[in-house]
């Protein structure tokens, strides 16, 4: 468990890709914990997986298609009811351009 995979700077960089901002204290804490976890995951390299088809889901059937018809299930009011900010018609966000 000794090899360091992620420096604190790299932890911060990956966090920012996921739109998370870590305090310096948390960067240190997470870097230690994440390196432990990632080192543990290296265990998988013991197994030869050459030519093994990856399995991404237990249900491997083909894509299910439905008829392309419009169904109106919910109202605008219902959907906007949980919005942190709206004008009654749209979600409101900070100025983008």
């Amino acid at each position: 468990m000794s090899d360091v995979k992620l420096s604190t700077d790299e932890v911060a960089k990956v966090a920012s890709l996921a739109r998370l901002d870590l305090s310096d204290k948390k960067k240190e804490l997470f870097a230690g914990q994440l390196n432990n976890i990632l080192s543990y995951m290296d265990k998988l390299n013991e197994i030869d997986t050459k030519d093994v088809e990856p399995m991404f889901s237990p249900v491997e059937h083909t894509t299910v298609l439905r008829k392309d018809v419009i169904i109106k299930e919910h109202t605008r009011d219902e959907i906007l009811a949980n919005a942190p900010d709206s004008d009654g018609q749209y979600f409101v966000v900070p100025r983008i351009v």
Partner: protein
Amino acid sequence: MSSLIEKSLTEIHSLLIAGEVTAVEAVKACLDQIEKTEPEIKALLAKDGENALKLAAEMDKLGPDASKPLWGVPVVIKDVLATKGITTTCGSKILENFVPFYDATSVAKLKEAGAIIIAKANMDEFAMGSTTENSAYQTTCNPHDLSRVPGGSSGGSGATIAAGQCFAALGTDTGGSIRLPASFCGCVGVKPTYGRVSRYGMIAYGSSLDQIGPMTRTVEDSARVLNVIAGHDKRDSTSVDCEVPNYIEALAERTDLSGLTIGLPEEYWGEGLSEEVSEACKNAIKKAEELGAKTVPVKLSMTEYAIATYYIIAMAEASSNLSRFDGIRYGHRSKDADELIDLYTKSRTEGFGDEVQRRIIIGTYVLSAGYYDAYYCKAAQIRRLMRNDFEKAFESCDLIAGPACPTTAFPVGELTADPLQMYLMDIFTISLNLVGMPGMSLPVGIGKDTNMPVGLQLMAPAFGETTMLQAANVLEKSLPDFSKPQQI
């Protein structure tokens, strides 16, 4: 406990249908028990007692409906499932004020069957945890010993059942989150086959692993709930369109275990298992043999790779699923952001707890360019090898049995400082989520050292719930009743 809440779901349902107990009386009994026990146990988040009583009164006016398998039965729903009009937080601050305008399919089916929702159950934030200590709101205590954890992530669902607050609860299981709390709280918990129950309306954690299932006081009760919630749903393309057997009728078809072969994987019965769990589970297997079951050793040689495989896949899926929480359409929005990226970042950083952030970061890392093949793809390949392993094992047996967890419930705070040690508690449960097969935890004893419940895990091939429930039912009836906490 008042006599009413000591009943099983099946018993209370018979009384309700016969008109000997009204729906209002059933709801009131549960609400009283909640009032009495909840200050210490803290199993519940949003409570909906008033509406539950109103609905019960309306139902009583119309009279019992025998065609509804859960008519008048008070139930609790894990807070990961959308409930129309009832706050659904997923145990997270980011959804603190989220009130869904629709029901999850499993919830809609319970309502259609006559069940009355009285509350939402506490859970680890976004179902990430094994103890319910990761809830952003409260730590649930184990009704058998308040200083110990109830297990997780469906710890609120396990505790509410053990405390007699309701007759059935829904949990969800991504890596053991039904079976582990069932084992720790001494109740029955069933993780169905992946695709058996619609996931529509379940706030996704690991979409290729998540399944919804019942937590109850008896096997028959779980069979009754599974009957209601199972089946194909056009809103979940991974729900499988195959016939749902009548699990309750099937229970009556088997009164012993003759002709049944149970595989015992050496990887589940050896090193790392606590002595008290080993002893209680071995006694249950001995009982199964007395009831006519044949036991054979089987090999699940990939078990030691399960945790690493699982956490790569689960965290990768989580990082993708949780990207929807952006502070725009629902959920927490930061008050001090002045441009869009800043708004995303601040809202997510303020809204997500530490464990969720850890998993999102690892998930993002293992999916990033340069690491995808080494981690995510490698894990997906090993996942297939694991399924081959299970399929091979099931060639020589009908069911596989082992402990649900290496230990009984441990003290609150014991594992919170070391995430990796916490992940290792899932060693016996996570393989099934990876391979998509069904499993359940059945209370089979009380550990002699901790005096806490021990769960035996039964596992079946895909869509083999019938045989699994039959065997559990026979075994349960021949073992003493362990499900009631001594303190309550």
